[in-house]
C-alpha cells in the first residue's frame, strides 16, 4: 500500500496544477470546461472496473461496482462526446 503522504503529495500538487491551467480558461469556454472536466471525473470508472471484475470480491460488492461502471461510463462517454459537440460549434468567421 502506498504511503499516505505520497498520495497526499500527489493530491495537493494536482490541485495546484489544476488551479494554474484552469485560471486561463476564458468565460466563453466555461460550459465545455465543465462538461469536459465532468468527463475526466469519470475516471472513477477505473476503480469500478477493478472491483467489478475481481472474483475475490463478494457478489454484493461486485454488483455495486457494476452499477458504478455504468454511471462512470455514462460520464466518460457522454462527457467527452458532448464537449466535442459543443467545441465544434465555436468557430471564428
Amino acid at each position, binding site marked *: 500500500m*502506498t504511503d499516505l503522504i505520497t*498520495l497526499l503529495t*500527489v493530491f495537493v500538487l*494536482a*490541485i495546484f*496544477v*489544476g*488551479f494554474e491551467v*484552469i*485560471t*486561463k480558461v476564458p*468565460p466563453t*469556454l*466555461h*460550459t*465545455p470546461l*465543465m*462538461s*469536459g*472536466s465532468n*468527463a*475526466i*471525473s*469519470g*475516471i*472513477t470508472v*477505473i*476503480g*469500478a*472496473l*477493478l472491483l*467489478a*471484475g*475481481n*472474483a475475490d*470480491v*463478494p457478489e454484493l*460488492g461486485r454488483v*455495486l*461496482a*457494476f*452499477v458504478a*461502471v*455504468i*454511471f*462512470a*461510463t*455514462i*460520464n*466518460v*462517454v*457522454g*462527457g*467527452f*462526446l*458532448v464537449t466535442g459537440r*459543443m*467545441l465544434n*460549434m*465555436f468557430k471564428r468567421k
Partner: protein
Amino acid sequence: MSQQAVNFCYLIAAVLFILDLKWMSHPRTAVRGNRAGALGMLIAIVATLLSGQFEWGYIAGGIAIGGAIGALAALRVKMTSMPELVGLFNGFGGAASVLVAGAALIMASSSLGEPSDRMKIATVLSALIGSVTFFGSYVAFGKLSEFLAVKWKLYPWQKAIKFGFSGLVIASVLAYVVSTGFDAYTIGMLVCAVVIGGILLLKKEAIPGGTALKMAVVVGSLAAGYLVVQNPDDPHAFWLLVMVAGVLGVLLTWSIGGADMPVVIALLNSYSGLAAAATGFVIDNNMLIIAGSLVGASGIILTSIMCKAMNRSLLNVMFSRLGPTADTPDADEVYKNVKSTSADEVAMMLETAQRVSIVPGYGMAVAQAQHAVRDLANLVEEKFGAEVEYAIHPVAGRMPGHMNVLLAEADVSYDKLKEMDEVNGTIETCDVVIVVGANDVVNPVARTDPSSPIAGMPIIDVDKARTVVVIKRSLSPGFAGIPNPLFANDNTLMFFSDAKKAFQELNTAVKET
C-alpha cells in the same frame, strides 16, 4: 501488464488530462484538448483492463450499457438543455464514487484483517461527498427541468421522474431494511429516505427551519462518518452515512434557484471531482487522485468566479435568498416614466447606429431566440454596416458560459462574444444596446444604491450607452425581486414582447427599411 507498466500508462493519461484543460484556454485549441482528454481516458481504461485477470461479465456489461446511454444523451441533447445534462452528469460521478467506496469496503472487510485508518477515513469522505453530489445534482437537475419545487401542473414525464425518484429512494431503502432487519442504523436510514423522498415532493423552495435543519444534518453526517470509522465491517453504518449525506445534499441545493444556479452547478462539478479523488485514497490509486483533484480545482475556480460576478460569498449563496429589502423602492414609483417602442422604431435607430451591443440573459435561452438574434445581428451588419457584438455577463443564464454555448450554436463567431469588463470600458461609444431577457445583471442600482440586495454586483453598464432597448415580456422583476430603474431611464425604450417574436419582427422591420 506489470503494475509498473500500468502506472506508466496512468502517468501518460494524467499528462493528457492536464493538456486537455490547458488547451481549453482557447477555442482554437480546445477541440484538440478534448481529444487529448478522451485519449488519456482510453489509455487509462485499457491499461487497467490489461493489469490482471478479470471476470469480464460485469465489466463488458457495464461499459456497454453506460457507453450506450452516455452516447445517446450526448448526441441527442439540445444545446438549451445543456445545464440539465451537466447537472445530471455531475450526479452520476458522485454516485459512482459512493458505489466504488462501498464495494471497496465490502472487499476489505471480507478479506482478513481490519481496513487501514486511511482507507476508513477516505471511505467516509468518498461516501459523504459523493452522496451530497448525487442528491444535490438530482435537485439541480429537477429544478432546471422545472419539475421540483414548483406549483404548476407537470408534464407526464416530469411526474414520472419526480414521483419515481422519491418512490425509488424510499422503496429501495425499505427493501434493504426489511431484508437485513431493524436496528438503530437501519431505522435511521429509513427516516433519511422518507425525509429525502418527502422534501423532493414539496412544491415550494422554502423549508421551515431550513438553516437549523441544515446544521443538524451536517452534525448528523459527521456522526454517521464517525460510526463508519468505528465499525468499518458494518455495511449498515456505511449506508446510514450515505443516506444522511443524501439529506444534506438535498437541503443544500433545495432553496437555491434561478440566477444562483450557475454557482450550484459549478460547486457540484467540484464535488464530483473531489469525490473521485477521495475514492482514489480508498482504493490506493494515483490516477483517481490526480484526475479528481484537477476536476475539483476546476469546479472551485468556476464557483469563485460565479460568486465574484454576483458580489456574494459562497455561504451567502448557500444559506440565504435574495429579495427586496425595506428600502427597496416601489415598482410603480420607479416605472412612472417607462417608454415603450416598436420594431419599426428600433429598426430606424439601428439604421444610423455604428456600434450595437446585444446583452443576452436567461430569457433568450427560454425563448430559444439565439438564432433570431443572430439573424438580426448579421442583417444589421450587412445592410447598415454597423459593428455588432455580444456583451455577456459571467452569470447570465443557468450555468457558467451558458449564453456563449447558445450563441456558438447559432453560428456566432466567438470573437464577437465579449466579456463584461471589455464592453464596459467602451460602452459610452455604443449607439444601441439591445438587452434580451436579462434584468439584474444590467440593473444600475448595483452601482448606485448600497442598501440594495445586489449592491456591489458587477453589472454591464448599459445605462451609459447612447440608447438602450430592453426586450422583455413585462416589467416583472428578475431573480433579485427588485425593480430596475434602467427601464425608466430617458435613454431606455421598452420593447414588450417574447424574445424570439421581437427579433423576428425586428428582422422584418430592418429588411423593409
